């Protein structure tokens, strides 16, 4: 979702449950501002649109079920009237279902972790019970609850932008989602995202970074300078937004913005971090460290 000035406002998912019925998720931090923005659009920008909004945040208890056995686990709790094999319920599918013998629920095949993943929702009154059922059903697959720390690692491995990349300065083009802003029709932020200063040769692009020495630890907030240049403001080409230790790659990895990033894959630059008194040689790589073709989440 863009602001009027073309800057990224928030990210989330939108599911179409019926011809005129959508469910939109936002980030937790921006839930109120997105709702307020939508009300502003509905009431002030387009009062002629026949549309109503209401928050259902409290209505549904929703769980991400992620990992290679996610489907097998869910097949033990989703009623068999609702087939969820890959053909019946493909990646990005959504729908009303029932679980555990007739309890109304919703299923979304979306993945922030990059794994084969679903999000399953039941009315809040069944939330505790549903979590117990999921863990019991998942026991044979060694399912465990995972938190935002693990999710943070997986989304960096997958190259998914989050709050660190949506800092109020960046555009859809900056994070590599420029194609999602259709030029065949208008949308909020479309026109002002075409401003000259936001479309220069030196545009920032979100890419991945790996330390040349795999034993080095990257740090968020480091600024990128080309090899041979001094770490000065004049030579600043971008910054590291998010870092994590990747257990899959057995090294520190990072996401960040650097000028002309997509054209510089393979180039070595310095990640200068004068605040912490260090500078690390890093290679510019694709932001999609793991499963770049999305085989896992479509599998």
């Amino acid at each position: 979702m863009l602001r009027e000035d073309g800057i990224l406002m928030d990210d989330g998912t939108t599911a179409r449950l019926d011809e005129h019925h959508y469910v939109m998720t936002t980030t937790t931090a921006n839930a109120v501002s997105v709702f307020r923005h939508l009300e502003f659009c509905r009431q002030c920008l387009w009062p002629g649109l026949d549309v109503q909004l209401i928050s259902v945040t409290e209505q549904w208890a929703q769980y991400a079920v992620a990992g290679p056995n996610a489907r097998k686990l869910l097949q033990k709790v989703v009623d068999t009237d609702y087939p969820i094999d890959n053909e019946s319920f493909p990646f990005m599918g959504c729908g009303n279902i029932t679980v555990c013998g007739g309890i109304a629920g919703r299923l979304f095949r979306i993945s922030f972790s990059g794994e084969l993943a679903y999000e399953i929702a039941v009315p809040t009154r069944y939330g505790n019970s549903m979590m117990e059922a999921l863990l019991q059903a998942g026991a044979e697959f060694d399912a465990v609850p995972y938190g935002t720390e693990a999710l943070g690692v997986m989304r960096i491995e997958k190259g998914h932008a989050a709050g660190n990349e949506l800092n109020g300065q960046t555009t859809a083009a900056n994070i590599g989602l420029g194609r999602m802003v259709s030029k065949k029709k208008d949308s909020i932020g479309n026109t002002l995202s075409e401003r000259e200063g936001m479309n220069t040769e030196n545009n920032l692009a979100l890419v991945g970074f790996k330390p040349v020495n795999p034993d080095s630890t990257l740090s968020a907030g480091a600024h990128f300078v080309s090899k041979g240049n001094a770490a000065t403001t004049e030579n600043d080409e971008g910054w590291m937004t998010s870092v994590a230790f990747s257990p899959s790659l057995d090294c520190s990895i990072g996401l960040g913005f650097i000028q002309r990033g997509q054209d510089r894959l393979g180039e070595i630059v310095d990640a200068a971090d004068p605040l912490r008194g260090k500078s690390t040689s890093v290679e510019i790589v694709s932001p999609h460290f793991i499963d770049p073709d999305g085989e896992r989440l479509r599998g």
Partner: protein
Amino acid sequence: VVDFTLQAQTPLRGYYKQFGDTSVRESSGIAIYSIGLALDSEPALIKIKSSLGADWPETGSSTNSSDGAYRLLGLQSDQVFVLVSTPSANAEQVNKLPNLGKSGLDKCAYITDQSDSWATLQIDGASATLALERMCPIDLHTTVFGIGQVTRTSMEHLAVIILREADNRYLLMSPTSSANSFQHAVETSLRNVIE
């Protein structure tokens, strides 16, 4: 066949407590639906009158069906909450509003289940108003906030919908996820006025 069954829990687990002359209890047997009006609101207003037997409430007021089954809370000009008392206080019994679907109201208005979104507390007794005056920023004097009036407000930084059911009886709705904190706030204020 699925091997798991789910147990429903209300946000406050059927809470009930007496504080001197005043009681606080969770009203768990209430289904809550929002009704949003379409741009052409006339068909829905007629349908609400004919199928629910209640008028559309002005913002800040509430209306009741003649049989008492439905209570409409006027929360904004184009959106109301409908409270439906279910025969049992059992959370399992709170299900779909059969009349709304059958009447075709869902074809001309936007209906959303909100039953699990709100923890509902009824505070009833001589000290109810005294306790709420300490935590509710709106003026609760009966000449300002009379019986049947309703508003969105906040108490102890928590969002609340307050409905005055009688001089000293209120229905308070607060988001499910902070239900325990809200219950604690109401209890604390009540203790402070009766002790």
